[in-house]
């Protein structure tokens, strides 16, 4: 399982919303292969019936008073945006067929 092919690496790169050069993909396949071969050592451990740990502390959802607080000012919230219009984030068009407005 630890040998990981170029196609598989490209599938995962697409899932991760990255675009890598051929050279980077080859390097990634090599590095992931080495790391996953090391990770194969876990397979030897019997973990039948062992509960997984997602978090080390018991996580209850803490409740608080339902009191109103001021949210981040919308102008401040967009201050770091690469492109903003008023208090909106501007992104490339995602819905086809409408005129630029």
């Amino acid at each position: 399982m630890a040998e990981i092919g170029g196609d598989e690496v490209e599938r995962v790169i697409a899932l991760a919303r990255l675009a890598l050069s051929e050279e980077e993909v080859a390097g990634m396949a090599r590095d992931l292969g080495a790391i996953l071969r090391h990770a194969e050592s876990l397979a030897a451990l019997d973990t039948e019936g062992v509960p997984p740990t997602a978090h080390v502390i018991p996580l209850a959802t803490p409740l608080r008073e339902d009191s109103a607080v001021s949210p981040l000012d919308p102008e401040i919230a967009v201050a770091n945006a690469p492109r903003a219009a008023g208090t909106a984030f501007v992104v490339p068009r995602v819905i086809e067929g409408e005129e630029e407005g």
Partner: protein
Amino acid sequence: MAAASETLEEFRASLDSGESSSRALVEAALSRAEGIDERLSCFVRMRAEGALSDAEEADRRRAEGEARGDLDGIPVAIKDNMVMEGEESSCASRILEGFVSPYTGTAVERLRDAGAVVVGHTNMDEFAMGSSTEHSCFAPTRNPWKPDCTPGGSSGGSAAAVAAGLVPVALGSDTGGSIRQPAAFCGVVGLKPTYGRVSRWGLIAYASSLDQIGVFTRSAAEAAEVLEVIAGHDPLDSTSVPEPVPRFREALDGDVSGLVVGLPAEYFERSEGCDPEVLAAVREAVATLERAGATVREVSLPHTRYAVATYYLIATAEASSNLARFDGVRYGRRASEPKDLGDMYRRSRSEGFGAEVKRRIVLGTYVLSAGYYDAYYRKAQQVRTLLRRDFDAAFERCDVIATPTAPEVAFGLGEKTDDPLRMYLSDIFTVSANLAGVPALSLPCGFSRGLPVGLQLMGAPLAEAMVLRVADAYQRHSDHHRQRPPEFA
């Protein structure tokens, strides 16, 4: 060049006696940084104007008899993954270049509320992913003891800044050893508290179930003091522990008689590839504690050899999810003239992230993807349970566990950058404390080839007071923490 920073106590004495002022201390820190940071690259950004004005405020408070406490007016540094209102933070990544935070993180806020003066952000491996501070979009930080060696990482800038006497206190973050390993490499104290002891609000996330903020200082007593300030429950971090914060300094009585120090065989005789000089220095430190009255007992952490694999599966899975937010929409870098939304995401991220960050995002995406989840991610979470149980059992037989912090002293710049797995394996002794969530501290315990060796002390969950007590007692019987890098003394 201004003089190297002194201990917190000496700083305070000079402020209390009126011999110095906060403004003078901050000016000295800034000018010293200017003088030597071209060589070391500890800082990525200085905050000269803001720091001087904060220092003047501190001096005014002191003159009016309203000093806020022991840290009032003291210059400190924070890692570049911590945010402060109106200031840039970039996680040493191109993707966050120019990001100005609209708010201040809790740990930084608590330090500032106590009067500490933030002089700048320190260098790090990009998004805290690395063990050498070479994966920074800025220059790599250099080790003050030997500038052709790394300071360790990922909080290498903070560790080197304290070691080189630029500041007496710096904050770092530790996900798999990122405070303790650089503390060991730079010959300072580095404390990673219990998971949840310090709020993560305002810490840019790497792996949320492992990340923890902690401190760099020269002595354990100073670390105790700073921890008292930054620790404690925070409603803004639902994983922060709702437990009262002890007065850690009160536990530092110098007495270890009757305490049991556990030595896990897996970190000593059964450890492969640990430098014999490192092991010898650590054993000598344990012998010092024994002479001071502690009892030494062998304990076992049988799943240690699985820790690195477990860590890299869990941490990268969490990272792949956390770093999905860097998409070029709300902040950070956006690729120019994207064809469509997908193209914008992919190119913004690919241009903005460095090679190591991409590697971890891809690995994390892989282990979470359909068909591999059970074999890798779920399996790693189960092994994490076994590692936690190892610690639970060990702490029934001892009060603290002593080990080397790293299997080696500081390695050379460029020595491991071509071999990610080899770099990952250098975290062998530190990742378990993050997986189990226990507090752990590294302190200087000797030298090998002119470079500092770190002793790691780990405690039961929330037992920082015990860890600090043993570390402080050791420092009363040793002077390794008083050594300064000759070039920067």
